[in-house]
């Protein structure tokens, strides 16, 4: 049975990729561009050159974690659209730690900074979790609204108390000390945040499938009423799932700041929180799927710049592509059915 599901799952993933690439190719062709050359350029520059590949992986790093921000709550039957806000709050608290930890060595400072980021994101997930557990506000609404609040709070600190004096025109905090920065791999731009993302994906898989807690959380997602009657603390799991999700996005936020920007400012996310949500939906909350889909989304974003440079395709085309992916997400039930029947036939 499990094998059947796996086959159906991989078929679905494959189908998504083929659909996305196919529709985009059509779009390019309709606009008088050469889709084959576009794919060739994207592959040549972003996959076949180390430099390009690192770039794709750097972009994947936050996506792995923001996808988990949606995946944890999803397993408990919750929809967390607040990855973007949790990303910002994680960056905020992590920055506070980075700028205030007194001269400790890097191997202590970095974990403290990351932990502070996770706490910040977790806090931003705890609020909607609590509101939902009490039955006051639907978490989809509250997480969405908190997305608007978080950058304003970051803005207050960046424009106000934390503003670096030398940056007259561009409000941002002072630079992180070297010990608070996430190390990169050799001379590449690939930083340890990517591996932290993989590590948490594994932890997520283990937690969900191999622990009693994971079972309880999934039961809450499956049938809250039955779980309650069986003695599962439903409210606690609702809050916890949101906190865990928020912590993942918060980690993504501070990792991005500590590895790429080295300073907190408002322009730290081109929508990583939202893209992570997209990744999780495309992947059906499956950890391997999350790796694959964040790779695809990261490749599209990198490819967007490549195509601008090599073929003068406006960046708006990439936005069209991401919108197309959303349609694919909406068509997921249909593609699921198709994939299942394909898998069955393939087995037969």
């Amino acid at each position, binding site marked *: 049975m499990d094998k059947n599901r796996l086959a159906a799952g991989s078929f679905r993933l494959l189908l998504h990729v083929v659909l996305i690439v196919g529709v985009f190719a059509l779009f390019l062709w309709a606009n008088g561009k050469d889709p084959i050359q576009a794919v060739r350029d994207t592959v040549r*520059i972003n996959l076949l*050159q180390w*430099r*390009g590949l690192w*770039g794709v992986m*750097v*972009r994947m790093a936050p996506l792995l974690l923001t996808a988990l921000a949606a995946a944890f709550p999803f397993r408990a039957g919750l929809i967390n659209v607040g990855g973007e806000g949790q990303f910002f709050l994680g960056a905020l608290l992590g920055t506070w730690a980075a700028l205030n930890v007194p001269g400790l060595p890097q191997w202590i400072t970095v974990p403290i900074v990351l932990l502070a980021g996770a706490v910040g994101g977790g806090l931003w997930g705890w609020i909607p979790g609590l509101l939902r557990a009490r039955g006051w506000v639907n978490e989809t609404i509250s997480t969405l609204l908190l997305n608007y609040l978080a950058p304003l709070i970051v*803005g207050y600190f960046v*424009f106000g108390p934390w503003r670096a004096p*030398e940056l*007259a*025109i*561009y*409000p941002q905090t002072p630079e992180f000390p070297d010990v608070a920065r996430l190390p990169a791999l050799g*001379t590449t*731009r690939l930083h340890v945040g990517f591996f932290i993302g993989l590590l948490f994906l594994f932890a997520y898989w283990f937690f969900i499938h191999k622990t009693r807690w994971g079972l309880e959380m999934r039961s809450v997602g499956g049938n809250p009423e039955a779980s309650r009657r069986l003695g599962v603390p439903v409210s606690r799991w609702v809050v916890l799932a949101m906190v865990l999700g928020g912590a993942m996005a918060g980690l993504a936020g501070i990792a*991005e700041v500590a590895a*790429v*920007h*080295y*300073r907190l*400012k408002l*322009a*730290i*996310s*081109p929508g990583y929180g939202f893209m992570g949500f997209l990744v999780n939906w495309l992947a059906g909350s499956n950890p391997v799927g999350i790796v694959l889909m964040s790779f695809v989304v990261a490749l599209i*974003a*990198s490819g967007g*710049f*490549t195509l*601008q*440079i*090599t073929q*003068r395709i*406006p*960046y708006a085309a990439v936005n069209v592509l991401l919108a197309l992916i959303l349609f694919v997400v909406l068509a997921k039930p249909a593609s699921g059915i198709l994939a299942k029947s394909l898998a069955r036939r393939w087995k037969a």
Partner: protein
Amino acid sequence: MKRVVAVLLATLVGSVAAVAQQPCLVVGMIIGGTKDDAGYNQSQYEALMALKDKMPCVKILFAENVPEGDAEAVLENMIAQGAKLLFPAGFGYMFPALNLAKRYPDVVFMHPGGYMLAANFGTYFSNVQFAYYVLGVAAGLMTKTNKIGFIGGLPVAFVLGNCNAFHLGARAVNPNVETVFVVTGTWLDRAKEVAATQALLQQGCDVIGSHLDSPIAVAQTVEAAGAFFVGYPSLAVQKFAPNAWVSGLGLTWGDFFVDIAQQVLNKTWKSAHIRKGLEAGFITLGEFGPRVPEEVKAKVLEYAELLKAGKIEPFAGPIYDQAGNLKIAAGEAWGALDMGKFDWLVQGITGSPK
């Protein structure tokens, strides 16, 4: 197999052909907004296009809407494609570009408005504050209510400097002018810009200036209200306010980009902070709008000429701040290097410099 050989051959022939007509220089630029924003990004893009026109042997690489976190990757991509001169054309790209400059010492970086230098990293910008004084003169002559308005993105030194210059220019020809200053809190937010413009118009301001990434929304709002508008930082914004248009300032770096490209080619380029004004064509005064009387045009042009010749000093003391403190003493004058020091507004301006 045959096909593989054919593809390989085709690639080989292709690369040989590419070598045969190699560009003399590959130049790359990234911008944070869109190339048609009638503002900051468009002025950068137009300079790049001017370079392309004047030096046809140059190959251009260009990308828009590049987030700061992606800047390093996109610029590195351009370097991989042979770029030897890069314009990371947004203030927020300074640090990513400096990182790259360290790793690629044979690539020249020219950054707009940055305050840091490296051996292969220089900066350029226009002395906007001084030129804005001329728009102030125009506003002071055109206003009927003796109240003019200025919309800034963020309350930072260069924005405050432009507003101060706008006010001082207006006062120079009309001692009764008062200026109202508002900020939107961000470089681009059309909804807030419309709200800010309407607030200024309702307070009786009838000439509106601004310092934003893209002043399209302001221009359209002023046009609809029938008031007057001065444009900055691209003259392309004129078409959004054809009747409200008084004049404007455009950042014009096309010839300068050509010089830089030549220097890189001749290996005479040297890292420096380059700041020039109207006199060097780094910034250009636009044409006048249809409702501007001849005597106003003459007066504005006269001031522009005096400024170019260095015969007037917009920031010559005595200048007082809003609270009446003497900020620039008599006999003293602030020059181009002092423009980053403004954290105050000149007496006669309403609004907060914080």
